[in-house]
């Protein structure tokens, strides 16, 4: 078998690069991270003609090789490092036929690195509507490349692209623009100092802060006469370079592309007139958000109930079918309820990502950014903070990573700090189960009370985020430039394949990422709840039997007393009782206390923990919800989960910073322990106070 061809997919954002990736690799893809950083690394395998295989990397979208963010750095670091195992044999630059001019800028830069570079012109199906025609032969000759004209939407041209990739050796490596044309004197000196290096590569190393460049950079700095260039001078040269490139591109396109404007049908401006309208724009945005929340609640309740009862049944079945013993108990009381706590998430996470990816794919998200910028700026945020705040409803981690395109450091930092307030999907199961326990069913204006409560909690999350941003904006003394450039892409009908793959991939990574943690914690909790130190635990049976000897109790009642006595004297019970004084003022008992403590690792552990604690020693087939409803407050009597303690719990979960992974990401993105530490203490402290006030007021 011949060796795999390394292919790097590169392109501006909004060119359909990911569609091309999906079209080439289908389900043969995996998503990981670049070593050491949290930039998503998408790679896949594509079968080419004649049994050749291509290893395809979908690099983060970038407008040029002048990187200004971590994501963009990945692109340039890979392209400059010939020793990287992923260094491409061929670079495939994906462009959008409607924005060819701008997209070609990146193409010429990559070409100048003397890497074989293919040009993919995507969205060819739109040429007719826009009155665009291209002279491919002319463009191929001028740009010295091979061009694949494709439409991922209509599935046209993909085979031709595969064919071109397979024949990558035929693609020319002649650069488009000589670097020395930009500034003769400077570049000639540079070449003299480093005769063996590619000029354009040197230039990139000088102007960027790329990791790979560090060694080269020292060498360059060592040669005295290059230090003299000030930052402003370098920027001027970069401007000159950009202008030069556009001149070249304009010359090429003047002959190679004709646009008959009279043919163009302009759906975009009509849609924009409504969607970015002063009043309608906001109204539509609000309606869309409302629909999403109602849908998440309504649509997923059926599969969730089903999952809940299935796992309750499975647990019961295991207990009856397998030989009695410790491991059977672990399965029935630890592992199966733990797994149930993961699987029950799937419907809602899938729906949430479905909506978010549709909003992103359609190009609507940019309009929201545009509409919200002025409003958000008042709170010290950027319009671009809307995207993290909305995707924070799925998970704070990708949301915090999505702040990277915010140009101003202060706006970005504030966004990072407040994003964990938005209601992430991990809070959802906690909310759902408590809402179902304390809020009555019934409807108000067609919306269920329960759905309304959930919406209120989402609103509370956003409001807290925005308000704390306002305070942070006043408190933080950071001066930073306030750049804001956002592309307004064309409206597109989201492609089913792209949306489906996103949903599938995100759900999968949730199940296997968070799932492993939840499972491990439930196993340990089961152990802590099933074993205990000393005589109280080991002699539970005889203690109870003597205590209740006088009363005529049935076998069932006695065994129930025994198991609850055991639980109280198990390791977990002892720990729980130790922390009870702290949480009693909030209306919680020690079991909830344990659940809260264990959910500092990750919120979603809460339900799983309660499920485990309540399953230990319980024989009957009951769902988690029913067991929670049956809990009695040991001191006051009455149900433990009543309105007051329920609201207090909801508020606690709304504000507390309970996610180790988020803290780790904040540390990484802000490069300091200061911010995550502040987040942990301020948010959790605030949560405690609010929950305390709520309970004392409502009880």
């Amino acid at each position, binding site marked *: 078998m011949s060796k795999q061809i390394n292919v790097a997919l590169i392109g501006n954002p909004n060119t359909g690069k990911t569609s091309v990736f999906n079209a080439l690799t289908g389900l043969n893809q995996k998503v990981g991270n670049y070593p050491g950083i949290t930039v998503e690394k998408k790679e896949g395998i594509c079968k080419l003609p004649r049994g050749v295989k291509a290893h395809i990397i979908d690099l983060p979208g970038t407008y040029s090789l*002048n990187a200004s963010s971590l994501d963009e750095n990945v692109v340039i670091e890979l392209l400059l490092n010939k020793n990287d195992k992923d260094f491409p044999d061929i670079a495939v630059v994906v462009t959008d036929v409607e924005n060819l001019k*701008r997209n070609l800028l990146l193409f010429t830069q990559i070409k100048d690195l003397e890497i074989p570079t293919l040009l993919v012109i995507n969205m060819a199906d739109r040429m007719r509507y826009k009155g665009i025609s291209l002279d491919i032969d002319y463009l191929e000759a001028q740009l010295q490349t091979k061009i694949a004209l494709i439409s991922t939407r209509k599935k046209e041209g993909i085979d031709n692209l595969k064919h071109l990739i397979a024949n990558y050796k035929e693609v020319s490596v002649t650069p488009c623009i000589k670097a020395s044309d930009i500034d003769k004197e400077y570049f000639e000196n540079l070449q003299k100092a480093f005769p063996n290096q590619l000029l354009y590569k040197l230039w990139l190393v000088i102007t960027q802060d790329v990791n790979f460049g560090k060694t080269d950079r020292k060498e360059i700095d060592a040669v005295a006469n290059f230090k003299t260039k000030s930052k402003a001078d370098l920027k001027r040269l970069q401007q000159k370079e950009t202008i030069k490139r556009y001149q070249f591109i304009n010359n090429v396109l003047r002959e190679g592309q004709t646009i008959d404007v009279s043919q163009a049908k302009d759906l975009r401006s009509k849609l924009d007139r409504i969607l970015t309208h002063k009043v309608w724009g906001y109204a539509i945005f609000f309606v869309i958000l409302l629909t999403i929340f109602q849908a998440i609640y309504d649509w997923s309740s059926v599969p969730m109930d089903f999952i809940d009862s299935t796992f309750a049944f499975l647990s019961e079945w295991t207990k009856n079918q397998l030989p009695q013993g410790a491991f059977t108990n672990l399965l029935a009381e630890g592992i199966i309820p733990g797994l149930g706590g993961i699987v029950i998430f799937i419907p809602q996470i899938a729906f949430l990502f479905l909506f978010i990816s549709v909003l992103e794919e359609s190009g609507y998200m940019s309009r929201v950014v*545009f509409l919200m*910028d*002025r409003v958000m700026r008042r709170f010290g945020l950027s319009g671009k903070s809307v995207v993290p705040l909305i995707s924070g409803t799925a998970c704070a981690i990708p949301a915090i990573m999505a702040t990277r395109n915010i140009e101003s450091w202060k706006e970005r930092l504030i966004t990072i700090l407040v994003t964990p307030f938005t209601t992430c999907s991990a809070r959802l199961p906690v909310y759902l189960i408590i809402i179902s326990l304390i809020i009555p069913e019934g409807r108000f204006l067609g919306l269920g009370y329960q759905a309304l409560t959930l919406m209120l909690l989402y609103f509370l999350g956003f409001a807290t985020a925005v308000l704390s941003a306002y305070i942070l904006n006043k408190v933080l003394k950071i001066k930073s430039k306030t750049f*804001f450039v*956002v592309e307004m892409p064309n409206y597109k009908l989201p492609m089913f394949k792209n949306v489906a793959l996103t949903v599938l991939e995100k759900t999968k990574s949730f199940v296997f990422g968070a799932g492993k943690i939840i499972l491990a914690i439930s196993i340990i909790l089961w152990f802590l709840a099933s074993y205990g130190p000393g005589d109280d635990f080991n002699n539970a049976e005889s203690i109870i039997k003597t205590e209740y000897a006088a009363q005529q109790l049935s076998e069932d009642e006695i065994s129930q007393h025994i198991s609850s006595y055991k639980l109280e004297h198990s390791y977990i019970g002892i720990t729980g009782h130790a922390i009870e004084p702290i949480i009693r003022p909030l209306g919680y008992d020690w079991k909830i206390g344990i659940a809260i403590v264990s959910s500092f690792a990750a919120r979603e552990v809460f339900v799983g923990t309660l499920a485990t604690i309540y399953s230990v020693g319980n024989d009957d087939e009951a769902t988690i919800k029913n067991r929670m409803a049956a809990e009695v407050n040991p001191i006051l009597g009455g149900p433990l989960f009543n309105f007051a303690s329920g609201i207090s719990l909801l508020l606690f979960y709304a504000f507390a910073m309970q996610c180790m992974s988020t803290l780790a990401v904040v540390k990484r993105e802000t490069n300091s322990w200061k911010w995550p530490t502040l987040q942990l203490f301020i948010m959790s402290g605030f949560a405690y106070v609010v929950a305390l006030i709520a309970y004392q007021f409502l009880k």
Partner: protein
Amino acid sequence: MQNTLAELKRGERATIVDVSSIHIPLKLLEMGCLPGNLVELVQLAPFQDPMYLNINGTHLAIRKETASHIIIEKEL
């Protein structure tokens, strides 16, 4: 008196004259905001900011603050 992009009204067109100010990010130039190019103000967000522009076929939004550093010549 030179005109800047910030003074453009909705639907108006102009030609970009100068973008050499240090307050203009390189990214903006790379997206096609270059001297000689045609710019049209497509839409203003509420409170007149940010500005939704069409520069030579590229649609993008920038804040008024940045726009005020871009020198233009209005079309008559």
